[in-house]
């Protein structure tokens, strides 16, 4: 089980880094800043899928994989919608 804990640690650190990128941003232009944040959020969604997969392995309950699948479907749509909006709008 320790291996799972190490993997959890990696993912937690990764989530922390993604959060730092989300809050601290070197750009001035607000559109580019928003795009940077979209990248960070996309990464966080991927990390959440990773968390769910790990949790399914840790607890031995495969139901969590279903949740991971749903998140994989939804997160992608959100990213695409954001990118399209930022491409067109002000």
């Amino acid at each position, binding site marked *: 089980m320790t291996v799972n804990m190490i993997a959890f640690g990696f993912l937690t650190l990764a989530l922390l880094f993604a959060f730092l990128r989300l809050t601290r941003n070197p750009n001035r232009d607000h559109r580019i800043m928003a795009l940077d944040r979209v990248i960070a959020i996309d990464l966080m969604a991927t990390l959440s899928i990773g968390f769910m997969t790990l949790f399914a392995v840790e607890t031995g309950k495969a139901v969590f994989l279903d949740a991971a*699948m749903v998140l994989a479907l939804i997160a992608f749509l959100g990213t695409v919608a954001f990118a399209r909006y930022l491409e067109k709008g002000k």
Partner: protein
Amino acid sequence: MFWDILSKILILIGGFFMFVAALGVLRMPDLYMRLHANTKSATFGIGFLLLGAAVHFGEFAISIRALSILLFLFATAPVAAHMIGRAAYIAKSPLWGGTLSDDLAGKYDKKTHELTAEIEEPKAAKKN
């Protein structure tokens, strides 16, 4: 026993690559390279995690589910990256100072955001 160890190794590699992806997103100097880290290392990492889960459960129905998540992520991650990259270029996100050349410079129509048709090989390698 062997499958157990294999799944542990896969999960460890997956976690490590997701960590690398997040570090890349934090450290890379410009938006495009952050996109590189996000699209590839993260997808690669989660691929290993899901393979590890598939090996761990070892049941056909569950493993197929894990593999279908994997397939779906591999199909959608490049699309999201393409959308963000295109929007970033149109928003004039600055390229890193060390970028050697930019073939895309000046190719976008300002109003319609359409790429102008380019039949011959573009050779305007503008230093940035």
